[in-house]
């Protein structure tokens, strides 16, 4: 899916827990996430902490969308 969206000309960031899988499906901008059953959350944190964590990840995704890349790039901290 991610590849077809990119192919259509839209910059796309893939937020995915398992980076190698994201690479094999052909994502170019990759933001690693927390865990498979809760990629953008963590049920062990308080509501506020969890949302802050999610915000941090989404902001990283926005940064990825604003960054020129030549090849598959993983955006970590």
């Amino acid at each position: 899916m991610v590849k077809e969206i990119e192919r259509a000309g839209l910059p796309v960031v893939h937020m995915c827990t398992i980076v190698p899988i994201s690479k094999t499906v052909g994502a170019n901008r990759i933001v690693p996430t927390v865990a498979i059953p809760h990629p953008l959350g963590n049920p062990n944190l308080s509501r506020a902490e969890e949302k802050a964590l999610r915000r941090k990840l989404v902001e990283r995704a926005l940064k990825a969308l604003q960054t020129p890349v030549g090849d598959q790039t993983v955006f970590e901290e």
Partner: protein
Amino acid sequence: MIEKIIIVTNNVLSDTSFRGNHRVDFIEGSLLDVLIKVRDYIHLGHRLMTHPLMGSIKPNQTPYKTVAITLKAYESVDLNSLILIENSIEITLKLLNNKPPRNWPEEVLEDYRAVDFELIKNALN
């Protein structure tokens, strides 16, 4: 073997035999239910210790499965474990869809339990 393990199984032989020495998660359900439970553990960072499709008896043939995973949930998901379990589930679904298991007579079930148990026992020793 140094690492502490969890045994996920729907085989009563494995359950009774390992209960003393390891944590056992006994599943009242099908072979597929065992694999799905293992998958959920792996998603939370546990790692596979034994291959989910051990044995040449096809997963649409034997109703029993025992899998060993690490007791510890690691920070990150282990890719190898993930690929193995996801592929195993996929192939199991395919074969079940191909030809669902029949209702075996008790003596055959007994043999299936024995083989499953022997293979895992042997892998862990």
